């Protein structure tokens, strides 16, 4: 990876460190969730993001905090990389009233407009048409925001994907379709469920700009993200990014993973983006102490977040009648 430092498309040191910080914030959050699930301190259906940290961190580093994000149930990497406060996220994952959504949405429906996390959906493909609407609002109001919608390779086989790409291209919406191609749609390998050889091969049918990158390479991923964001902000329309990555764990925490060939698992371990990124920073002369300080700060934030979540109260039962409609439902 160090060789890429010589390339013309290199990115500056401060940005690279920021992407690393966000990657580690995701990595450590995901790791802590899995540790607590393993030890029985937490009970929830968890969709691991191990292996996809750098992809999200690179994308979100190309955005402003008020740019919009729409993501999916496997979205904790996107939310954390976007900048969501960990204490609010953890409280929501544990169903507490101090959570982003008062514990009423849960892990699959994280919403935090303060950090631009507008919708997290549990329905595959459903985020894309909604992202168009957010982008349409920005186009209409001229607020300069861009919208990123994350989805997996599996989502490109559902109708909503195609309807959304067509409309976004037609209306030149400031939206970025971020396909995180992690090679598996739940338990089904890419080639078993997807007729297109590559996801980007679908873009020409919608007259849409598309780029395929190594999503686990922060420099390549950030540059693609930045170019798409710049295009969208300039009013030049949407981009489909196919970011190649790999889901290093099962569909859900603890789920069977035997359907993934051993060789692929070994290859993925060898190409783990987190140690590679660590090495890249060292190669670029970032001091080990600086990296350690970044990690220590995240650990502290995470410790505080977990403690806050566990100590927080569950929502009161009156919450069943609140937020159903604007007006509270009568008891």
């Amino acid at each position, binding site marked *: 990876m160090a060789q890429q430092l010589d390339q013309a498309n290199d990115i500056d040191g401060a940005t690279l460190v920021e992407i690393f910080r966000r990657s580690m914030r995701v990595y450590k959050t995901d790791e802590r969730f899995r540790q607590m699930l393993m030890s029985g301190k937490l009970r929830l259906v968890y969709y691991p993001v191990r292996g996809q940290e750098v992809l999200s961190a690179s994308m979100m580093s190309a955005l402003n905090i008020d740019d919009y994000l729409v993501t999916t149930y496997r979205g904790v990497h996107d939310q954390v990389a976007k900048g969501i406060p960990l204490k609010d996220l953890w409280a929501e994952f544990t169903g507490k009233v101090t959570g982003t959504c008062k514990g009423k949405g849960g892990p699959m429906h994280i919403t935090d*407009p303060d950090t631009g996390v507008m*919708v997290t959906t549990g329905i595959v493909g459903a985020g894309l*048409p909604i992202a*168009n*609407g957010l982008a349409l609002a920005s186009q209409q109001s001229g607020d300069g925001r861009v919208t990123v919608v994350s989805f997996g390779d599996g989502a490109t086989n559902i109708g909503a994907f195609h309807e959304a790409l067509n*409309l976004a291209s037609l209306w030149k919406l400031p939206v970025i379709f971020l396909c995180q191609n992690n090679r598996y749609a739940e338990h089904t390998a890419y080639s078993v469920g997807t007729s297109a050889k590559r996801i980007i091969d679908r873009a020409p049918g919608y007259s849409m700009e598309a780029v395929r990158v190594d999503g686990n390479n922060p420099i390549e991923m950030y540059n693609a993200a930045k170019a798409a964001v710049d295009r969208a902000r300039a009013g030049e329309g949407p981009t489909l990014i196919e970011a190649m990555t790999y889901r290093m764990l099962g569909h859900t925490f603890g789920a069977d993973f035997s359907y993934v060939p051993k060789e692929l698992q070994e290859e993925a371990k060898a190409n783990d983006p987190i140690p590679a990124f660590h090495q890249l920073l060292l190669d670029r002369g970032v001091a080990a102490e600086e990296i350690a300080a970044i990690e220590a700060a995240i650990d502290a934030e995470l410790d505080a977040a977990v403690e806050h979540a566990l100590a927080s109260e569950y929502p009161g039962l009156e919450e069943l009648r609140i937020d159903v409609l604007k007006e509270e439902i009568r008891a």
Partner: protein
Amino acid sequence: MSTTDKISFAQAINQALDEAMGADPKVMVFGEDIADEQGGGVFKATKGLSGKYGTGRVRTTPIAEQAIMGAAVGAAIAGYRPVAEIMFMNFLTVCMDQLVNHAAKLRFMSGGKTWVPLTVRCTTGAGVGFGGQHSDMLEAWFAHVPGMKVVSASNPAEAKGLLLSAIEDDDPTLFIEDIMMYSQQGEAPAPGFKVPLGKARVRREGSDVSVITYGRPVRLMDEMAERLAGEGINVEVIDLRTIAPFDEETVLNSVAKTGRAVIVHEAIKSFGTGAEISSRIHEELFSDLKAPVQRIGSKYSPVPFSPPLEQAFLYSEDEVTTAIKRIMG
């Protein structure tokens, strides 16, 4: 315009959209064929709006209901007040996910951090020979979804007043139009006339039986009540106007007075909104009832094409009068 002028139902919709767009720059309209270049909508409900407000705010869309509804949901979360036209109610089936899983639930699932001030307009109704996929009355499906409001008007003036309220409302609202009523003329309302959501209207007071209905059957029930008055039966006619959440107070007060209730809707009877209203009446007023609550709806069948079948499918006034006379003893 004086209040004695007449307007059609379609004109009433058009006026409501025009007034809403004029009053609030955040109101946008999306749908198939709706801009003037495409004819201003197949029922002309949006005629002239794109000319007046531009094709940025009045957007003709591809025939892609998920894209329409998703765009409306997203724009609504971001502060707009979209009015999405889904041409026929049956076409809601291809964007149910956006409406049911997203529009209706986002306020709750976000703990109130986002909400969806969306109005969805659609038309439907049997009687014009569209057959099984353009005529269904599916209001009960949406009334069953927490977070959604469902509205149906019975005359042009109230259509305008209800639509304006729906657009101003901060919850997602399904506004059901009846294809048989677009050309129906009625008194033109004064500018700014609004009908609050969630409030039924007692159209005619009566002491013997409460007829609870909404939409197209309302006018028929008005006429029937007039005839039955001549036979000495005093019918109270209630137009729900908002189907969900329905005005329980007005319904229960009426039935507490009359002791008898008949619910009439065009949707098929089985598992329809009439079942819910009937149950609420039985739960609250069982000991006050002089007879079991009656339900009149269309037959348990897809809407047929052949005219005699289509007429036989529909509820009829005869069925209502027969039910009323039976429970009057």
